[in-house]
């Protein structure tokens, strides 16, 4: 039993004792004042819930046939010692019960917090709160929610760290292989050096993207400005047309004029560019990437970026926004695997949403929908 139990117990018990003594003293005093009423039937027991065991004994004690007090100063009869003791004992149990009722769930919670603090986030208090429906049970539920969320976050962080080390390892492995080749075949030194340079740049790029992602996750979103969506998209589309031309991928673009959002221009540009690039990468030659923006009836700006590639199985639609996710049957490509994760974080900083969907008409390809709140 913890200190809290003893405190609660003591306070409740002292309260009860005070009530018993007070009530007892009142009746005793009243009895003293009116000895004539001694033959009357006992008064109804006082309606105090906590003193259930008290009244009968107390009343019995007030009867007049008790021997007169030996002490002349106390003519009203003896002090009701026995009922007082009985009352005290009863209140002892009562106080212990109440104190235990409150202290127990708190002790459970405390233990749960202690284990969680030691790093064991598997702790749940829900089962210990069985049947309770009060603020303490709510607290337990909140605790469970908290540990669950922490666990998920930590698992995500761990996975990210694991993925990052793996991603860093691939360019490193190539770097080492290139160095080995340079040593083995000095005649092809230039070739090897170019490779080494490329891998170094790749690692630098990867680290840059990671830093961006971690800054975004920490909530650093840069200064916000009012931007015209059509203008922003037009710039991205121009680049995309240039890039797509090499792979014979066209870009269709249509945006309603006068759409404004409040966002950091650099980050939003990058987010949409990442999505567009991703679309280009998975567009087969001879197809086109459709980009559109309009204000829908819900008062939000909807951007659509749809490719005509192979699309994705429904189970992977959500997963593509996690860092380093790569479709199972796709070549690794030249991306870092962070583009869509960064896009999602950027869109989240402006209270927007990004989601991958299948096309409504069932045609092949992937549709990425970005919903942004319109600025006045």
């Amino acid at each position, binding site marked *: 039993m913890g200190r809290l139990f003893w405190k609660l117990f003591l306070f409740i018990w002292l309260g009860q004792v005070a009530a018993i003594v007070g009530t007892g003293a009142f009746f005793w005093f009243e009895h003293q004042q009116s000895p004539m009423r001694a033959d009357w039937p006992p008064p109804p027991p006082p309606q105090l819930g906590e003193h259930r065991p008290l009244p009968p004994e107390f009343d019995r004690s007030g009867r007049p046939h008790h021997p007169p007090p030996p002490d002349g100063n106390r003519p009203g009869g003896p002090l009701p010692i026995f009922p007082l003791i009985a009352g005290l004992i009863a209140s002892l149990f009562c106080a212990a019960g109440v104190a235990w009722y409150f202290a127990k769930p708190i002790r459970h919670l405390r233990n749960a917090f202690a284990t969680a603090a030691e790093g064991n986030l598997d702790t749940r208090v829900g089962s210990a709160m069985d049947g309770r429906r009060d603020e303490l049970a709510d607290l337990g539920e909140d605790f469970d929610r908290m540990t669950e969320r922490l666990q998920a976050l930590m698992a995500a962080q761990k996975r990210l760290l694991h993925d990052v080390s*793996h991603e860093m*390892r*691939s360019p*490193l*492995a*190539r*770097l*080492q*292989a*290139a*160095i*080995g*080749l340079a*040593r*083995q*075949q000095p005649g092809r030194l230039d070739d090897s050096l170019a*490779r080494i340079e490329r891998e170094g740049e790749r690692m630098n790029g990867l680290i840059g993207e990671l830093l961006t992602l971690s800054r975004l996750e920490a909530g650093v979103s840069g200064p916000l400005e009012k931007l015209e969506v059509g203008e922003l998209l037009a710039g991205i589309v121009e680049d995309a047309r240039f890039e797509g031309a090499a792979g014979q991928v066209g870009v269709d673009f249509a945006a309603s004029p006068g759409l404004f959002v409040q966002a950091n221009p650099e980050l939003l540009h990058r987010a949409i560019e990442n999505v567009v690039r991703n679309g280009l990468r998975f567009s087969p030659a001879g197809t086109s990437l459709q980009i559109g923006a309009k204000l829908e009836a819900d008062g939000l700006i909807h951007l659509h970026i749809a490719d005509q590639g192979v699309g994705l199985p429904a189970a992977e639609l959500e997963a593509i926004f996690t860092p380093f996710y*790569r479709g*199972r*049957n796709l070549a*690794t490509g030249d991306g870092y695997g962070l583009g869509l994760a960064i896009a999602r974080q950027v869109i989240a900083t402006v209270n927007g949403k990004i989601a991958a969907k299948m096309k409504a008409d069932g045609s092949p390809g992937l549709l990425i929908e970005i919903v942004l709140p319109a600025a006045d």
Partner: protein
Amino acid sequence: MAAVLLVDDDVELAEMLGDYLAQDGFVVTTLHDGLSGAEAALSGQYAIAVLDVMMPGLSGVEVLRRIRAVSAMPVLMLTAKGDDMDRIVGLELGADDYVPKPCQPRELAARLRAILRRSAPSAEPSSAPMVVGELCIRPEQRLAEWAGVAVELTSTEFNLLEVLARNAGRPVSKSDLSEQALGRALVRFDRSIDVHLSSIRHKLGTLPDGRSCIQTVYRQGYQLIRS
């Protein structure tokens, strides 16, 4: 020269390693996914397979499992550095050795040569059959028999058992085992020898009193009991 099958999903890396190994005198074929890798490995054209553990689709471990189901061909695994699980699982499934990635191509070539040298039938004159209790080892045929029944061993397992048999009745230290059977010095915290030996124990029968014929000698190594 030895035909090497290199299976790694990293196209550029496989190309570079292939280039290096080719220059080093191996005949290299590179493949980039597990499925075709497993098929090619079982075609019987290759002296050794190098498998990357981390591959999308069919992982290197799964490819190894498929190879080991029918063949005892030498297999070298490329594992992620620091990932002990992959390493132990690979060895348990019968990989002959592993090289942590990123690796120096020079080291990869050296390991390949070591495995190939060991798995080649030995031409030494002293390769008469060795008999230790129920165990009979024929080095020239690279065959091991337990109570007259042939035991399927990978080449690394065979080498380890051969070293133990040559020293039957005496404990052999892990570093000696590593140098003589794996062809490389023992690295700290390297559990390869233990994993290989545990696999050999499972494949061999037990002594009449139920003990394994290979005993661990505390702080000294392993010993093949001469009964």
